[in-house]
């Protein structure tokens, strides 16, 4: 029983990291129909900025998270204006894939040049480091923090999309952008804001998840498939979908690692195959036919 609880807590922590990073990608795919392969690259930029802020500017962890999120959004603005804006909603998937993978390699090269090829740690503040006794086992305090961040992110996004005026406009633009335009909704602004939101979430996930997915220049490529898998299993654009996919895949991966570590990612991908076979549009996805 203790073992089951232990695996569950590790699974939830890993799942939440996947969720925070992937939800931004999911939103972009669901709303703007852009398969942003460079999403992981932006998450990585967030991680690098946080690492730099803490290690060289000696700011507090919370300030560093803020700086990383805002910094990454600022970095992403030229990409949005010059490149992404042209491919929202309409373009050929091949062009999207080529463009965003190009951006990924570009960012990897630049990051490698500026920060060097070695792994960058993001030092945790005293309150978040070290083990914490949660009754049936010791758990890294940081994992609890990650789980909390995931829950807060999910709730905040749900409120934003379901309960605010911005959310209403956003959903209108998604369902029928032409009609939304005709009714006076500035869809290009909605898209720009959503892009910033998606990138910001990616950066946030990159920073808080750095203990589990360490920050190094090839981060952007190494975890690209994992993030894409979460989105396709959950269904593009669905918060609930991304959340349940993250938790399910986190559980499959963690259980697999515990019971049969020599199988590597086998159980992760096995569960992906099964889920996608049963739900071709993802758990909570809608067909965009």
């Amino acid at each position, binding site marked *: 029983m203790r073992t089951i609880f232990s695996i569950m807590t590790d699974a939830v922590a890993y799942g939440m990291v996947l969720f925070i990073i992937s939800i931004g990608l999911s939103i972009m795919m669901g709303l703007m129909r852009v398969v942003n392969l460079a999403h992981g690259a932006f998450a990585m930029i967030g991680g690098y900025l946080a690492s730099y802020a803490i290690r060289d500017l000696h700011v507090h962890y919370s300030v560093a998270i803020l700086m990383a999120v805002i910094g990454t959004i600022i970095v992403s603005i030229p990409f949005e204006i010059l490149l992404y804006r042209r491919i929202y909603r309409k373009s050929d998937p091949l062009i999207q894939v080529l463009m965003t993978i190009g951006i990924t390699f570009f960012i990897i090269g630049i990051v490698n040049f500026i920060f060097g090829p070695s792994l960058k740690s993001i030092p945790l503040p005293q309150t978040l480091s070290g083990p914490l006794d949660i009754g049936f086992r*010791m758990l890294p305090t940081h994992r609890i923090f990650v789980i909390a961040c995931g829950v807060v992110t999910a709730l905040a996004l749900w409120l934003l999309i379901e309960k605010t005026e911005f959310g209403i406009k956003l959903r209108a633009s998604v369902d029928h952008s032409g009609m939304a335009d005709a009714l006076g909704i500035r869809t290009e602004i909605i898209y720009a804001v959503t892009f910033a939101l998606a990138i910001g979430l990616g950066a946030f996930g990159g920073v808080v998840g750095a203990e589990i997915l360490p920050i190094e220049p090839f981060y952007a490529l190494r975890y690209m498939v994992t993030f894409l898998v979460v989105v396709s299993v959950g269904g593009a654009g669905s918060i609930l979908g991304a959340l349940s996919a993250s938790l399910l895949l986190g559980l499959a991966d963690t259980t697999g690692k515990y019971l049969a570590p020599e199988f590597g990612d086998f159980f992760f991908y096995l569960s992906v195959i099964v889920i996608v076979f049963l739900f071709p549009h993802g758990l909570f996805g809608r067909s965009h036919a």
Partner: protein
Amino acid sequence: MNKGAQSILALAILGLMTGTASADVIKVGVIGTFSGPYALFGKNFKMGIDAWVAQNGNKVGNHTVEFVYKDEEGPNPAKSKALAQELLVKDKVQYLAGIYFTPNALAVAPLLEESKTPLIVMNAATSAIVEKSPYIVRTSFTMWQNTVPAAKVAFKNGAKKVAIAVSDYGPGIDAEAAFKKTFEGEGGAVVEAVRIPLATTDFSPIMQRIKDSGADTIFTFLPSGPPTLGFVKAYLDNGLKAGGVKLMSTGDVVTEPDLPNIGDPGIGILSTYHYSVSHDSKENAAFLAELKKGGASLDEVTMTSVAAYDGARLIYKMIEATDGKRDPAKAVDAVKDMKWISPRGPVSIDPATRHIRQNVYVRSVAKVDGKLINKEEQTFADQPDWALSTK
């Protein structure tokens, strides 16, 4: 490669060799990880070689020595083989050196006899590599060499039940076998043996598994780089250290550049290794001073710089012995039984295995003058590769 292409390559190389004998520049091709997650170790190859050249000049007799560097990136045997071919055919190198990963070294080995080129392995640590060609000499270490003392120390420190966790590739499997054999030979029990895929970054489930096995000590090996830090942090943060489970490892897991990231909770972690940056000797002090003069940061020094420094010494000796001619048998014979004082301590080349014999130190992570170091506490003198030699 088919037979026809092979003989063409052999002919091409033969043709080139007659060309190089008269030339007065002797080229040495160094294959190392100069980009990607393991770039620090390739950089250390270059730092070590540069230090040797700075101290000894770039001339041996009237031959000028030139080092040509190529990037092996990661564990990618096909790429390393292509790089070695390029160095042999295009750059006409007379010696090959470097190589961080075992699979890459194994891919290069078949080219050596055909092209009559000695290879000085400066890292790759699977025992079997030196058996793949009579022209391979190794100046780094092997897993057996460092692990056998680790198992002895663990047993002496009172470990009864050990969990082994290693990376699932050549050196990891060597480390597992070496520890298991030695530790069980001493009378201990191995209660768990986990092989971790190389790409793993989240070690929490593995720590949980080890905890459930009831082990009192963990022995681990992972290749130095991003995974090692994650492993040590998972060990500390999942409460294993607080719960009294000891961590024993080879030094790969606690390289000096990683210690600041592990932080104070890491104090007391035991490891066995052939080189510590803090090794107290005048040779090491001179070596570090030379690295610093060459522009290197002392926070970045790892074991690969020493292996490269000593490797360059062997290459100079080989060039001297062959007077710049391509004669691999004579070159390798010249360094067999060579003895010298390296920055890591007294070392020699074992004539039977062409692998380096050296001291293996038992170290524990300690804080000295506000800096975390691997403090040497005990010495196992003159250790061979225990997989290839028995004494």
